């Protein structure tokens, strides 16, 4: 995952292509959505374009599923432009 705060879509897609030659889509999540699931970004403060991870997932599988489903339901998906 990457911090894309303030980045133009064209710049975001460049990152996608750099990592995956033919990306089919990307999704956006707000930092607030992650905080609402009591998860943490690493690093907490990052620069636009910087790689970040989501940490402190619960160990119980059903708890992890629940939080991931909640994040997925809040994610905004963008198909690769033609």
């Amino acid at each position, binding site marked *: 995952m990457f911090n894309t705060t303030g980045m133009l879509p064209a710049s975001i897609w460049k990152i996608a292509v750099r990592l995956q030659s033919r990306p089919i889509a990307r999704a956006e999540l707000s*930092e607030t959505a992650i905080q609402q699931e009591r998860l943490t970004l690493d690093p907490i403060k990052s620069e636009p374009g910087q790689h970040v991870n989501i940490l402190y997932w619960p160990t119980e599988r059903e708890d992890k599923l629940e939080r991931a489903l909640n994040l997925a339901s809040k994610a905004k998906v963008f198909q690769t432009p033609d």
Partner: protein
Amino acid sequence: MNAIFQLDDYRTGDALHLYLPIPIFYSPTTQVLPDNPATATKHDILDLLSNFEEDGESDPVSKDTVLRALAFVDELNLGRFDRLPEVAATPSGEVLLEWIKANGKQRFAVCISEDISISYAGIFQYGRIKGAEHYENAADVIQSQLSRAFSKYSSAV
């Protein structure tokens, strides 16, 4: 807004697979159900054995986990539901089945491993659920939960 996005995504069937610590799908289209939903889903599960790509972080799905997932699918009556589950492997080597509707706003996921319990979680119009059941009882419980949101005979989209 501090927006972040996920790049490690790829196409699995008709869904966009977002590679979080567990896979998450976004299903943009209405599915056409095959004649035998169980067979189609079991093929997808078996494909997990051959489609594993070493990335240094993920565990492969074991044959025991696949066998348990196949047995679970046999016990579910998939023909009663209005769509097939998306099938994926988690980075921990579990089998994930996920049903999605309402543009991703309603979801139900089942996680199957070599453990004696099968975990599940769901987001429905009427609320959220989660739990874990012994694998011998899991199909009945999960069938019941799934029927509340994904029944072929429901009018919900």
